[in-house]
């Protein structure tokens, strides 16, 4: 279960690198020597987090951009954030 709060902010981990390539995003996890690819929505979420938007603000942006309901957006965003935290791609700021 995610313990993330809706007002939490995140940033790309200092030892990770992130680039958006067309409609997907690539993380290079420098310490682990691994690459992680996220889809278009994932890339959008990460870009929003990089712009210092909170999880709540990101969820609002997802509902506006992709015409999905807030609950679905919350589930998807929380799940991705949890996965990226586990992988060391992002950290709480």
């Amino acid at each position: 279960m995610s313990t993330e709060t809706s007002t939490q902010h995140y940033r790309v981990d200092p030892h990770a690198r992130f680039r958006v390539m067309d409609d997907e995003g690539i993380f290079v996890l420098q310490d682990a020597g691994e690459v992680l690819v996220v889809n278009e929505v994932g890339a959008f979420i990460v870009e929003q987090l990089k712009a210092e938007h909170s999880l709540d603000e990101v969820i609002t942006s997802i509902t506006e951009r992709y015409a999905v309901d807030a609950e679905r957006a919350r589930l998807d965003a929380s799940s991705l954030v949890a996965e990226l935290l586990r992988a060391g791609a992002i950290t709480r700021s």
Partner: protein
Amino acid sequence: MSYSDTVKRTWNDNRLMSVLLELTYACNLDCTFCYNDLSLGGKRLSLAQYRELLHDLASLGVLNLSLTGGEPLAHPHFFEIAGHARDLGFVIRLKTNGHAIKEAVARRIRDEVDPFLVEVSIHGATADTHDRQTRVPGSFTRLLANIRTMNSIGLRVKANSVLTRWNEHEVEELLAVCDDLDVALQIDPEVKPRDNGDRSTLAVEASLEGQARYRRALEAHSKRDVGVTKDPSPAAARRTNMAGTDKHCGAGSNNIAIDPYGSVLPCVQWRVSIGNLHERRVTEIWAGSGMLREVRETTKAARRKLEGLGDAGLLSNFCPGAAHTYSGDPLAIYPPAAQRMAASGRTRVRLTVV
């Protein structure tokens, strides 16, 4: 979507992903088969131009940035350039001879550059062999000490070597030395002509016996490491890797190289200028170079040509850039590629070798 699918898409969509910067041809070693064209001259890029270039590359979405030379640390503004690249979020690979990276420098690299990988050059398993190649006495002992230092402070190090007539007798020991240092080793079995086509470097290319010994050593090492046998069908594996694209390689499609004088090249091996940063910004060159369009079409032609040669073509490790250096024709089969095709035992056509 896997990372390899993403990379293929960058080939197909001409999406710039990786850039190699030759910062300088100056070097603190004097390797006999160095491929740099030391007679090349011109106006060097300034620090301000490097800053502008890095911003442009970041705006193009470039992910990977290799800093090389010559010896990149010999550039007077190395740390400013590399640090700026780090700040812009590139995945940095530093390709160096490792000679200058004592502890204080290693710590600066770690703290100011934060590279993904430091690639060092090792030319033999013994001081006699390595120092003969670098023409700097003591360079082998110093390299090993510097690798240990880099390892100890948390830099990820990989060793690169070129198989030559001088080190082919000790390739097993070279693998053992790198195992002992706990660094991965990549051996290029092919000595290249210099970038200006000068073939004098080939005087030290490995013998056929040396090449065979290298393949056996690599196979034995790989079996010991991962407990698998050799792929029963390398051609099939190559076909799988090539699926999903009609290009032979990503030269000029997802990667470029830039020399110290601002010439933009399709890749580090393909020494044909597609534009110069003293005249146009890299964003303009990437969007509008006619030569770049030609290069991309040539990589498709190379693919068609090699596929027409069957398994032998697929196993030739053909490089259009190397072909261009040998003969000026990026589609001409050159001697080492022809050798590999012959070794595959499946050459069905008579080849004209340049």
